[in-house]
């Protein structure tokens, strides 16, 4: 099968479905009416309570206002009105989030600071399936096999959530929730074209058999020219190629009987994108990704039992340029498979418990980068206890224990001061917790107090990268098996107030955070000369960092069609590392690597067939890095403060057809948002059919 053959097959399949194949449902999108015994019927519960519902904070379905964490919900309406063509473009207008666009199809998203290229501090899931790249815990957003039109909501949880999700959920969690194949009958197609030679489209179709089975198929992709290289070095500019992407996903669910529900899903994707990698080089990665997942849940006298398993695969061709403009190519194969079981049970009227067990295996065969296969096997057990102390007061405690076994097979670099036995004897046992108190002081006032201990595991490359001397510099770059996980402590106080007089909600948050045992890659570490005389840059733990911050925001809408939002986010980070952070040496320099101040504002209006939206974001300056023209030293780059303004005009041509014109960053033809290529203004015209 050729590279794009699967997409053609998928398109034919989807065309058959939308063309009137044997699927019975052609209803309206939205609440189908009958609530089935699925774990969480988001649509029905949202309609009942009049506000979004989430299960991402504790594993228990909750109204967002009652959840014991600072959570933002981005709805399908928000996504559509943003005019965005990618998830990071949507996220850049969420208070407390930092989005680094270092290529047309490449972005790193951080929550409350600590954002750098290939950011591994964030956990991203699609309906609970983790979608990070196993090699470095980084997110390649373009590879996520979800079309924007099939997303019910994006849930953004700020702060550590390791007690539910385990390692790496330290900065926060982003859970992308799609529509349900049974209850949400979504049939839509979008085509879009714009500047940068952008051409994209998506098709989503849903079919089913009564209220007992449903399948949703989605196919989408784009091609474009990447941003002009700007001030990038010749080598970085040469390494970048224009992006394209195509993904296909199938999501099905069966209601076996009123109490038992099963699901199966699969996806494939083919993506090329240029990005800044963790070495600070710019490269082009071409990926073939796939996933398969199945599960079953049952509403029993013993609680809501769930069992699921999934496997994700990625083949990654990396093309970049080393010293002396020598092309470097490598192929990585990454595999993750996960088995999860849980029981969510209500005891009496006031106590809810969730027991969880998980097995996860991540493996990276990184070719020349690691000279072998590095893998982790993680066994986890978790317990969540939610106690409704009084009608207006609840306390949630969650604790999780993770036990990791490290394994390496391959050929370590000659002279490397680590051995295969050291890797294979390495185990890590860590515990994490989340605790949150929610007090609804009045009908309009809610306070949340939360504390957490999150754990950031060293990435597979931090453990086992094996760059021989002469690739990037005369020195070797070597990972170590004896790294400690980073531990993130977080304390937070939130206050929400609904303002019915102006149909708005005010949200505020204060937080303190401390990260112990900061981890650096070899590319941000000081040079060491081993006893054998080998010059080496090692991965290592380099001290600690503290952060303090605050957020305040208001969001509302009026009955006559207006909507508005405004927010301010502050984060101040202080590093206490053992590194020499003089310019050109360190990448573990969190104090200045994300903006301290961000102001966001938005205004929208809907009337009859029209939708008009305007969004603006200002952020203060920060410090970023790229390689100097010799491609041997890090070059600090001051990214000045900037404003980006987006706008969208949507017009409903017919009941089923909508045209929209979106302008991303229409206030400036090009903006230096990172040390990478300047982000260019983008104008996109789209046509959406919804049946």
């Amino acid at each position, binding site marked *: 099968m050729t590279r794009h053959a699967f997409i053609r097959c998928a398109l034919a399949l989807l065309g058959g479905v939308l063309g009137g194949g044997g699927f019975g449902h052609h209803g309206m999108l939205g609440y189908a009416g009958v*609530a089935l015994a699925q*774990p969480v019927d988001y649509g029905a*519960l949202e309609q*009942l309570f*009049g506000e979004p519902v989430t299960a991402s904070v504790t594993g228990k379905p909750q109204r967002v206002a009652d959840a014991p964490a600072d959570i933002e919900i981005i709805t399908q309406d928000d996504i559509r009105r943003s005019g965005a063509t990618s998830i990071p473009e949507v996220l850049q207008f969420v208070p407390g989030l930092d989005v680094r666009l270092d290529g047309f199809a490449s972005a790193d998203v951080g929550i409350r600071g600590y954002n750098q290229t290939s950011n591994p501090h964030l956990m991203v899931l699609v309906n609970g399936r983790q979608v990070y790249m196993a090699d470095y815990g980084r997110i390649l957003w373009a590879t996520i096999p979800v079309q924007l039109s099939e997303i019910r909501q994006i849930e953004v949880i700020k702060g550590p959530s390791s007690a539910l999700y385990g390692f790496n959920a330290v900065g926060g969690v982003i859970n992308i929730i799609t529509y349900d194949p049974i209850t949400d009958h979504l049939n839509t197609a979008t085509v879009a074209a714009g500047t940068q030679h952008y051409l994209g489209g998506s098709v989503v179709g849903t079919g089913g058999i009564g209220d007992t089975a449903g399948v949703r198929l989605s196919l989408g992709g784009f091609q474009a020219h990447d941003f002009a290289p700007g001030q990038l070095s010749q080598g970085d500019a040469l390494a970048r190629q224009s992006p394209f992407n195509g993904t296909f996903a199938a999501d099905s669910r069966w209601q076996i009987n009123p109490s038992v529900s099963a699901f199966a899903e699969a996806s494939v994707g083919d993506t090329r994108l240029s990005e800044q990698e963790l070495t600070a080089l710019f490269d082009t990665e071409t990926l073939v990704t796939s996933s398969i997942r199945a599960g079953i849940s049952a509403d029993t006298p013993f609680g*809501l039992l769930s069992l699921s398993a999934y496997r994700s695969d990625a083949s990654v061709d990396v093309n970049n340029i080393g010293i002396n403009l020598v092309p470097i190519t490598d192929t990585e194969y990454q595999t993750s498979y996960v088995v999860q079981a849980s029981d*969510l049970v*209500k005891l009496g009227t006031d106590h809810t418990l969730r027991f969880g067990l998980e097995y996860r295996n991540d493996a990276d065969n990184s070719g020349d980068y690691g000279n072998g296969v590095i893998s982790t096997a993680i066994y986890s057990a978790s317990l969540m206890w939610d106690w409704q102390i009084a009608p207006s007061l609840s306390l949630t405690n969650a604790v999780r224990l993770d036990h990791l076994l490290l394994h390496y097979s391959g050929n370590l670099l000659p002279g490397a001061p680590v051995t295969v036995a050291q890797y294979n004897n390495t185990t890590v046992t860590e515990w994490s917790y989340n605790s949150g108190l929610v007090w609804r002081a009045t009908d*309009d006032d809610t306070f949340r107090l939360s504390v957490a201990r999150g754990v950031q595991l060293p990435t597979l490359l931090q453990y086992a990268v094996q760059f021989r001397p002469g690739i990037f510099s005369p020195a070797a770059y070597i990972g170590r098996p004896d790294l400690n996980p980073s531990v993130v402590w977080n304390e937070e106080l939130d206050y929400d107030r609904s303002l*019915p007089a102006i149909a708005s909600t005010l949200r505020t948050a204060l937080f303190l955070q401390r990260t112990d045992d900061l981890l650096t890659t070899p590319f941000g570490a000081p040079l060491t000369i081993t006893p054998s005389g080998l010059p080496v840059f090692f991965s290592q733990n380099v001290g600690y960092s503290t952060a303090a911050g605050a957020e305040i925001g208001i969001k509302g809408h009026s009955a006559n069609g207006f909507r508005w939002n405004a927010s301010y986010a502050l984060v101040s980070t202080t590093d206490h590392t053992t590194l020499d952070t003089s310019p050109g040496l360190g990448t573990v320099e969190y104090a200045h690597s994300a903006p301290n101040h961000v102001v966001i504002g938005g205004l929208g209006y809907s009337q009859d067939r029209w939708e008009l939206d305007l969004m603006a974001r200002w952020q203060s300056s920060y410090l970023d890095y790229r390689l100097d023209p010799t491609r041997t030293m890090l070059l600090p780059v001051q990214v000045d403060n900037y404003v980006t303004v987006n706008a969208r005009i949507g017009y409903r041509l017919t009941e089923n057809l909508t045209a929209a014109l979106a302008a991303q960053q229409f206030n400036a033809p090009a903006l230096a948002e990172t040390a990478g290529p300047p982000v260019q203004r983008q104008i996109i015209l789209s046509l959406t059919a919804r049946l």
Partner: protein
Amino acid sequence: MVSGRHAPSRWICGLLPALAVMLAVTQSAAAASLSAKDLQVLGRALAFLQPPPGAGSIAVVFAHDDAASRRDAEAIVALLGDGLRSGGSLLRPMLRDSQSLAAGDFSVLVVAQGANGEAILAASRATHALCVTGDLAAVQAGLCTMAIWSEPRVEVVISHAAAVAAGIEFVAAFRLMVREI
């Protein structure tokens, strides 16, 4: 056009009765212990019964020999109009005296102001009908299964004991999200 000149007066003639009906409904709504929005919440909550109710009847019950209670029940019936739609089913309202519930030809009991008591509780137990009220105290006392209200925010409170006694079960996700006492 002759007909055109006469058209406005016909519109007004048609409009006046409609306004009168709207006024009456508004007044009824103001008088009812459950608002139209509360009843909308009820319709959505019924979808989480295990199993969901099929087509049938809602008995709106008033206290025997209590004129105020009867007026409240009539107001609720007026708000329900042709019936309460829950999922694909339509539940048609009917007015019932609290002393004439033996027939059991209903799947939901909506209790008007002042009617909560042992008679309703017994009927709910005997017929496995869901008892719904706007009176939280009645649910706290275990006399009725579900209290609902929609302002300032939607709240659903369930008496666990009353639900068990009436043999009523809810979908797990629903139980996890409502307040049980």
